[in-house]
């Protein structure tokens, strides 16, 4: 951690960054929260360990509008998000100094976060400064999706609708998602009104399915939507099901390869044609 702090200090001193996006430990509660460090801030408060769950990439578009150069601390999975944002021209790499340390999994209340089981990259695919050695990664298992696939459609409907009924439509899932950035969200459109604003099962189901579909082939599986949900709706599961489909069809895991466009926005002669061939269920 000291090595990282030293690096940040020197980036500030050399004027390579104006602000540093990282994590700070609250001395009174011991909680670790996202923080924007400025040059004169005490970097002893800066922490980077397995409590740093939040994906900070989501803050970059706002910060790049306010500051010239931004440093950011990235886990491997956050790096995937950064790749997706660069590919979609949300931010300019010239404004970003990416620091990444080999990640060994993150924990919430002492328990490893579920997404870490299918971790694709321990170090950000794009990084200006790397700390530690990257680890070998295996193909994803999508264990929880496979569990759901075993259910009958009626069981699945029950499983999801019980959760959707609880949705309060606070949009925390949308707000924390780096890839959810439409200028006018489909949920907010007035005419035509695609999704009713009231928090009831039919409208909530619309919201959750549309949200998931809009992220197909783009979601970098940071799992933040599910983590921030005040009602614990398993939203990552929906995204994961789509990610699994994309992975099986295109052998792509979004954000793992720099400059790789989302598979659904490119046409390639090698694209699978299972639907036309009648192989699709």
């Amino acid at each position: 951690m000291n090595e990282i702090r030293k690096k940040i200090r020197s980036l500030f001193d050399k004027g390579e960054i104006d602000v540093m996006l990282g994590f700070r430990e609250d001395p009174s509660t011991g909680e670790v929260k996202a923080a924007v460090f400025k040059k004169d801030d005490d970097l002893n408060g800066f922490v980077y360990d397995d409590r740093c769950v939040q994906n900070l990439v989501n803050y970059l578009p706002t910060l790049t509008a306010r500051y010239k150069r931004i440093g950011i601390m990235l886990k491997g999975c956050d790096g995937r998000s950064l790749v997706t944002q660069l590919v979609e021209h949300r931010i300019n790499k010239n404004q970003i100094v990416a620091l990444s340390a080999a990640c060994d999994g993150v924990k919430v209340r002492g328990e490893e976060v579920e997404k870490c089981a299918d971790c694709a990259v321990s170090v950000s695919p794009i990084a200006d400064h790397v700390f530690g050695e990257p680890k070998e990664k295996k193909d994803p298992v999508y264990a929880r999706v496979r569990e759901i696939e075993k259910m009958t459609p009626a069981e699945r409907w029950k499983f999801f609708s019980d959760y959707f009924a609880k949705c309060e439509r606070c949009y925390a899932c949308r707000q924390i998602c780096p890839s959810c950035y439409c200028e006018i969200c489909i949920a907010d459109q007035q005419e035509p009104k695609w999704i009713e604003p009231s928090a009831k099962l039919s409208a909530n189901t619309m919201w959750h399915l549309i949200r998931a579909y809009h992220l197909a082939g783009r979601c970098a599986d940071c799992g933040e939507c599910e983590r921030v949900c005040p009602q614990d709706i398993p939203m990552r599961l929906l995204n994961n099901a789509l990610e699994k489909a994309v992975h099986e069809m295109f052998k792509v895991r979004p954000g793992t390869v720099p400059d790789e466009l989302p598979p659904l926005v490119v046409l390639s002669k090698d694209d699978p044609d299972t639907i036309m061939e009648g192989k699709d269920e």
Partner: protein
Amino acid sequence: MNKWHELKAADLKNFLSQLADKWQVWVPYRNDGKWEFAPYDERRELEFPGSVIHVSVKQLLFPKRRPLATYDEESTWSVKSVTPGEKPRIIMGLHPCDVAGISYMDKVFLRTEHKDALYEAERKRTVLVGMLCTEMEKTCHCTDRGLAPDSAQGMDVVFTRTEDGYLFQSLSEKGAPLLESEYLRATDDKPDKKEWPHGKYEIASPEEFMEMYDDGIWHELSDICLTCGICTYECPTCVCFLVADEKFKGKGERVTVWDSCQLQSYSRMAGGHDTRKTPASRVRNRTLDKFAYSHLRYGQISCTGCGRCVMVCPLKRSFPQLGTRVTERIRNKKKMTRDATAPAKED
């Protein structure tokens, strides 16, 4: 001062079942680990939490979705307005901060120039039976907002736990009929007064907050806020709503639905203009609404110190802390101007 009445713990359910004959009775139950009000059910185990009830009572008086009128496009566009329920009801186990929230909603919804008929009907049929808190949660800070965990202000009936039962006292005409029960006995006992800690989240005056309108601090305060709407939904005094038409197969409803100033869609206007485009402007709106606008408009700041915003924040941020950070900035600014204008010391 009305007399206190004593109720034996063993008689609590009998007493409530008796009330349930005449009134709809709502009491706190634990659901998925969270306390929330639900209709009294004599089969369920009953317990009154000594501190904050997680799901705010707001949604009983001002529900998330309120139908105003129904219409039928197929017949001759007949529009029927919705009539609110009339059966009198008791909400039992409210805490002082809940009642303070309701008093604030009264000021907003019952002001003569813009009376909200649905709210008025809900409010009229409701008797507020409050319970004095026995403890303060980590997030509680009502003592910093001019309240106290054992203040009965605004309640129709107040009760408190004792070693072997409960003590009840009626505080209004609306509350008096509740205590006409053979299970209650007048007593000279009184609940003890206690000292409660304060000073967790102290704030400056509304006027001082207003002076911060153009300050750059709002960018700092909003730097990691997601601007989702959950703190406003759980807040007992956030009362913004939008009006929408929801229809299905030719039949429709005009409804009010909770809205939130933290959401991007809140201030969007024709032509795509938006007066609160940045997160900073939305966080400013909420902070000033709690600590300044409310006071200037209704004579009461709208933070009751219940701490729900802290409990529900997806990022575990503390909204009241934003108030104290603005307050610190105000104090520092004042000190700086004082120092600058003070006459130089003579050696």
